[in-house]
């Protein structure tokens, strides 16, 4: 049984049909690459799954149970972690505070629960080190470079035991050094039985980690096949529309 | 019997003083029977809003207007517009001399100031430093009172400190704070003359201020002569929190306004200036006013 199953999903923004009638499934411990031209609807699909907005039509089944998320936090509670394309970071907080935003570590003092600053800083430092990122947990995100911010967004997904991690162009702005770390991370997630949906425009990345590739074109699914039975050339042709379906 | 609708336009509806005028109008209108009194003004003291309201009343074709003038020049024009439209106009409390209004009913503000000054002089002929607290810098009637106080004390041993009068903009909290500030600024200040009742409209704040200076007041070294004679002020005077009050008669202003407008409607002659008089209250006489 698939871990996540989308059936007949559509989404319109006024006159724009961002997604039309998508069927799509991800199995436990599977890495699916989601590719497509700009504006094909990839981010829209991620946001639907993550509960940012409801689909216009269709249903989502997670772990055999039909779900209807109204807020992102509900999706997270069901084990869906997301790295957003625009990173979702608060500039006025430190890197550590951003990593733990919404699930701060606390310490009981009498009847009160206070933030455990030290534990959060330490854990954030470990996560950054894991990602081989030179991000300082105590620095304000405000001053950080594009890649450092991306590291913060990725570190965040490692906090809880997720069932599925959605990554919307997680390697867009980060340097090669960390790209391989992120890809390694994705493989490690798979080995733990966690499913990953990876959105990327980088063909080599997709072909090096993914088990399966799904191609969207103008809101429709035009391909869904095991990576082993496809080639970068074919996927490119599907993305650009040179080839209609696979 | 002919029915009339008279509009009473105060300077500001947030001032308790005008509530008394309103009550006077309403009472008299009820007594007369054939009069409806519409009480409506700007909520805050602002001349353009008052002028617009008068326009609206002209449109409504009310039968008479009684206005407490917020700004002389602008009211002069509004009054002309009303009279041109055949609506008789009188002013009350604050006048617009030289306008087309038929009569003014209210206090002679210069006299009012003079009375306050004379009260102070009577209580403390030996003189000293004094300060005043005023409402807003824009109000002509208040400016006349300030002049009156100054005139009454001219030639006496009383000298006004610089920075006086302070303006509380009808904010009673600010009025009390300013009294405290004035006393701190000049520790040997011998008198404060608020030319309106504002600080006493905050009775506890006023008491706190007085209690801090209780010794000086009891020793006759610090004197408080306050304008207006609202009930809470009389009570404070009775309990020893001020030395004397001088008050106007807003209730009568309201009553007389209705009479005057009715007379104008009946084409009767009325005097151009009707002073409603002043009440001078001291500790000795406060009892009879509190009845």
């Amino acid at each position, binding site marked *: 049984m698939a871990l996540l199953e989308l059936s007949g999903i559509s989404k319109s923004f006024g006159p724009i049909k961002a997604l039309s009638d998508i069927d799509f499934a991800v199995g436990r411990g599977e890495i699916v690459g989601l590719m497509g031209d700009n504006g094909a609807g990839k981010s829209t699909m991620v946001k639907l799954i993550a509960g940012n907005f409801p689909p216009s039509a269709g249903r989502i089944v997670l772990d055999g149970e039909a779900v209807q998320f109204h807020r992102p936090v509900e999706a997270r509670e069901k084990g869906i972690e997301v790295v957003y394309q625009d990173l979702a970071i608060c500039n006025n907080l430190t890197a550590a505070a951003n990593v733990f935003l919404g699930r701060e570590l606390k310490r009981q003092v009498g009847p009160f629960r206070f933030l455990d600053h030290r534990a959060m800083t330490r854990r954030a430092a470990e996560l950054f080190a894991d990602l081989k990122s030179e991000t300082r947990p105590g620095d304000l995100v405000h001053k950080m470079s594009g890649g450092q911010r991306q590291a913060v967004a990725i570190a965040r997904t490692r906090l809880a035991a997720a069932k599925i991690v959605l990554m919307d162009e997680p390697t867009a702005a980060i340097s090669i050094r960390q790209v391989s770390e992120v890809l390694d991370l994705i493989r490690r997630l798979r080995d733990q039985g966690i499913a990953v949906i990876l959105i990327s425009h980088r063909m080599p990345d997709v072909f090096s980690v993914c088990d399966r590739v799904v191609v969207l074109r*103008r809101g429709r699914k035009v391909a869904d096949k095991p990576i082993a039975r496809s080639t970068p050339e074919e996927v490119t042709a599907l993305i650009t529309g040179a080839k209609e379906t696979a | 019997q002919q029915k009339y609708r008279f509009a009473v336009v105060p300077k500001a509806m947030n001032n308790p003083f005008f509530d008394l005028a309103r009550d006077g109008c309403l009472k008299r209108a009820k007594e007369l029977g054939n009069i409806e009194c*519409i009480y409506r003004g700007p909520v805050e003291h602002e001349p353009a809003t008052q002028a617009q*309201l008068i326009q609206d009343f002209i449109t409504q074709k009310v039968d008479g207007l009684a206005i407490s003038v917020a700004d002389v020049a602008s009211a002069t024009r509004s009054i002309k517009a009303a009279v041109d439209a055949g609506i008789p106009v009188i002013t009350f409390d604050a006048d617009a001399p030289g306008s087309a209004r038929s009569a003014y009913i209210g206090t002679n503000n210069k006299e009012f100031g003079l009375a306050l000054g004379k009260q102070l002089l009577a209580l403390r002929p030996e003189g000293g430093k004094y300060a005043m607290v005023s409402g807003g810098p824009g109000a002509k009637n208040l400016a006349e009172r300030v002049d009156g106080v100054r005139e009454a004390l001219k030639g006496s041993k009383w000298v006004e400190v610089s920075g006086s009068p302070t303006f509380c903009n009808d904010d009673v909290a600010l009025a009390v704070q300013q009294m405290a500030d004035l006393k701190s600024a000049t520790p040997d200040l011998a008198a404060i003359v608020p030319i309106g009742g504002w600080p006493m409209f905050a009775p506890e704040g006023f008491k706190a201020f007085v209690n801090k200076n209780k010794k000086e007041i009891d020793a006759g070294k610090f004197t408080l002569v306050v304008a207006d004679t609202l009930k809470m002020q009389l009570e404070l005077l009775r309990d020893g929190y001020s030395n004397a009050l001088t008050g106007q008669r807003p209730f009568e202003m309201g009553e007389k306004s209705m009479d005057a407008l009715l007379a104008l409607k009946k084409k009767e002659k009325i005097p151009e200036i009707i002073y409603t008089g002043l009440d001078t209250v001291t500790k000795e006489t406060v009892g009879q006013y509190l009845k």
Partner: protein
Amino acid sequence: MAETGRLPGLDLDNVGRASWWQRGLFASQSAYVSLALVAVVIGMSLASQNFLTAGNISNVAQNFSFIAIATLGITLVIITGGIDLSVGSVMCFSAIISAMTMTALSDGSIAPWLITTVDGKPAAAVPGLIFALSILAGLAVSLVIGLANGFAIARLGLSPFVTTLGMLSIVRGLCYVVTNGRGSFPSGPDADLFYAVTAGKVGPLPMPFVYLVGLAIVMAIVLHHTAWGRHVFALGGNEKAAELTGVPVARVKIQVYALSALAAGLNGIIVSGWLGSAPANMANSYELNIIAAAVIGGANLAGGIGGPLGAIVGCVLLEVIRNGLVLAQVSSYWQQTLVGCIIVLAVLVDRLRTRGP
């Protein structure tokens, strides 16, 4: 923004065409507030038979244009994402300076050569010159205040809210200082000209209304069909991007605050002409009404959205409510409460209309 035409070469199969009620004027806040206005007018005319009389309509036309010119100015500021709290004070100060200049020129205490005596009465040496100089003096001080606001905000980088809040206080204080608390009024040989130009009528139309319509049309054209107007919108959209792409951000900002102050100044002079006086507490706390009018008309305080039509509709709505309540003999005390409700309702309607997917 005007270009919504479709291009032939670019037809994407997953992109439809917006329905007519989702496009152009119909999709704007102004349209919805205009609807609300019509509803209110109908309601008022049922509540009081005096409401739709010629006299009252002309009153309303006059009254709303008293704040509408200032609202046009502040709308520009709001489009850039700023705010101007000093407009009420500027209205008053400019009126006072105009009136004082006219008085001083007329009694010869400055530039006595402008005054001659005809039949024992003082008269202007050059007809209209005293009038023109007085108006210019009022507008000049407004301009200076606007430039000061703009300089502090654009060059020193201060927050518009705080800068103009400070200016509100500074300028109101100056109104009291220069007049010794009493205000002033226009007088002298050109006073009648002054009254005619500010409070007269052209045919059935009150002068302020004529000015307003003229200025609104100019503003609409400038906003949508000149580079400067485009830059005003760009500033409200993304100031940093505007800076990086070569929009003269600081200059545009300074201009916008200067125009807002000028509009307020002009508005103040017109109101003082109608009042026949420039009292020192004139237009006290009008800034909140003016901002409310702009916002009701669809200007977005976050910047990037707004226009003259909306500003005018907002002002009309506020005035119709004020006037209507008086005519319907609702207590003044309720007026404030109702105006507050209308403000919230207007933005609520807009919000429900644009409610997300």
